[in-house]
């Protein structure tokens, strides 16, 4: 396995006489297989909410979904299952899936009762996961249906950050419509994972399988993007770097002068991560990076560092990639359509976030306008499913009604990712 980076600029040309041209750099990063490499076993931990509200159909479906997950795992894969109400318990201790029937029996014994403390579930889950972390790909699925009434959201976030440090990826699954999308999104973003919405109980198995296929495609882990901008280029002042595919995430960056580092987490085979960098370049400057010529300027260099679970202990690095822009006279804008799509993905997310901020301030007319803008953006990028969701939320606000819990979740998910068609 190796990491591959490619880049495109929003406009590959810049006016040679311009001191201040704004461009977006779209980087795509993926794991590429080098022939017949076997799959590295997963070390999967399910942390399942079994609080009283999960009683009946919800927990029945979650049990079934978890059992189907067991069936889909390989005997070399490791699994642990934690259940939590206001206290956590180990339902299935960390083990290889050699005796799937006995594991499924343990899962079937899950009963609903008690309150909700997500952080305690997370704590015990990470502890159990760590028992089999060597030469495996670490993944946690955290499922909850409600607010963290007996716990601390702050502590959840701490555990999510800890998970990233331990190199285990944390995905969140919101069940029904009463969970907190702000908390689950933050946990998934910090944990390098995906946030999934299981709106109806009978979708649980399907969503579990989808997420399993996603984590089975992980080839490399703990990837970090390292970007060095040229002296004649500067990053945008406001949130200059964001992931825009497969989900939109405001990346946490460490910046040192013109050097930026951001954690990407897992790299998958066949599922690209795309990162958008917003910057300005002075094409007239003589303070350029080595390798630049007057008409081909190096805007910056990019590298990805990562670990290969098959070669434990070593931090590997991709080749350095020089991002070049062509400086020409009398420049006419030439938009790159692919990058335009990436820009629209981030615009859709940011516009929806701004709408939600307005909503929080009680400005529902302002929120409606921004949601409508976001819907137009979604349409422009060809994401008709999101456009429908965002427009219906905008219309709802315009008619003076409030968004239901379900609509708020749908709006968030629609803004963050390209909705899968049914």
């Amino acid at each position: 396995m190796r990491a591959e980076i490619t880049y495109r600029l929003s406009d590959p040309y810049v006016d040679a006489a311009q001191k201040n041209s704004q461009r977006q750099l779209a980087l795509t990063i993926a794991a590429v297989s080098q022939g017949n490499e076997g799959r590295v076993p997963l070390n999967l931990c399910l942390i399942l909410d079994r609080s009283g509200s999960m009683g009946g159909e919800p927990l029945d479906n979650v049990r079934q979904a978890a059992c189907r997950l067991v069936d889909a795992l390989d005997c070399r894969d490791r699994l642990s299952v934690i259940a939590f109400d206001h206290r956590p318990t180990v339902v299935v201790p960390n083990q290889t899936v050699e005796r799937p029937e006995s594991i499924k029996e343990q899962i079937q014994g899950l009963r609903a009762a008690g309150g909700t403390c997500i952080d305690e579930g997370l704590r015990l889950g990470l502890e159990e996961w760590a028992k089999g972390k060597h030469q495996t790909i670490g993944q946690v699925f955290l499922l909850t249906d409600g607010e963290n009434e007996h716990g601390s959201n702050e502590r959840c976030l701490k555990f999510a950050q800890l998970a990233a440090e331990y190199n285990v990826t944390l995905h969140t699954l919101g069940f029904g419509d009463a969970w907190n999308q702000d908390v689950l999104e933050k946990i998934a973003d910090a944990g390098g994972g995906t946030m999934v919405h299981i709106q109806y109980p009978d979708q649980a198995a399907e969503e579990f399988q989808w997420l399993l296929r996603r984590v089975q495609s992980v080839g490399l882990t703990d990837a970090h993007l390292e970007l060095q901008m040229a002296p004649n280029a500067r990053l945008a002042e406001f949130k200059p770097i964001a992931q825009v595919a497969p989900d939109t995430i405001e990346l946490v960056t460490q910046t040192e002068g013109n050097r930026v580092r951001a954690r990407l987490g897992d790299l998958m085979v066949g599922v690209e991560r795309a990162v958008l960098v917003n910057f300005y370049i002075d094409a007239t400057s003589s303070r350029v990076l080595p390798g630049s010529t007057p008409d081909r300027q190096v805007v910056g260099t990019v590298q990805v560092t990562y670990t290969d679970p098959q070669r434990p202990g070593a931090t590997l690095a991709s080749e350095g990639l020089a991002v070049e822009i062509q400086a020409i006279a009398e420049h006419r804008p030439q938009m790159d359509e692919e990058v335009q799509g990436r820009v629209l993905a981030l615009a859709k997310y940011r516009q929806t976030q701004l709408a939600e901020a307005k909503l929080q301030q009680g400005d529902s007319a302002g929120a409606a306008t921004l949601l409508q803008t976001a819907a137009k953006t979604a349409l422009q990028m060809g994401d008709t499913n999101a456009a429908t969701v965002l427009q219906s939320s905008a219309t709802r606000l315009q008619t003076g009604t409030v968004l239901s819990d379900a609509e708020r979740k749908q709006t968030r998910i629609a803004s963050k990712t390209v909705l899968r068609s049914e």
Partner: protein
Amino acid sequence: MIVCPNCAHVNPAGALTCEACFSPLPQILHTNCPSCGAEVQPGARFCGSCGFDLQQESQPVQVSTEAATPEPSEEVPEPVATPLPDDETDLRSRAPARTQLQQISACLIHVQTETRIELPTSVQVIHIGKPNNLIPPDIDVSGFPDSDIVSRVHGDIRYEGDAFYFEDTGSSNGTYINNVPLPPGNRHRLRAGDRIALGKGDKVSFVFKMG
């Protein structure tokens, strides 16, 4: 500095796309008044400094997709051949030639400089203020003395059913009609001879004239 019309984020110079919401930003290059050379916003109907009817010249409005510093060599329109009149009140004689006959004509006279500004009746709203990217003023007063007390988005004159109304659209220093403060959001129906002062102290004042 460019304020995003979509989310109000303040973007640095050179931004084409809002750094916060990634909406395209309006790219406005200043043009210069062909009469007095003062900087005016594209789309402004009158020069704030000399009251010159800019639309009469049908000068091209330069909206670029690239952020750029204006290049005076090619961007500035040809100077107008007619020399500037010595006496500013003579501007009256250069009142723009109307393409349509109008039953109503109205103007503002800037008290401090005796500049006359014709009010068009072809549009419903005339924005008064100073250059900004949210609501570019139709009447740009930035060239008048003491214009620092006037807000960028100060007030509107509305033309409805043969009558003109003044409203303050949320200025910082207020508007006084015949020395009485006009509460923001309130409309005042203008009558010939009304004195409109933008900001306190009667420093930037206009007399409304009709007919």
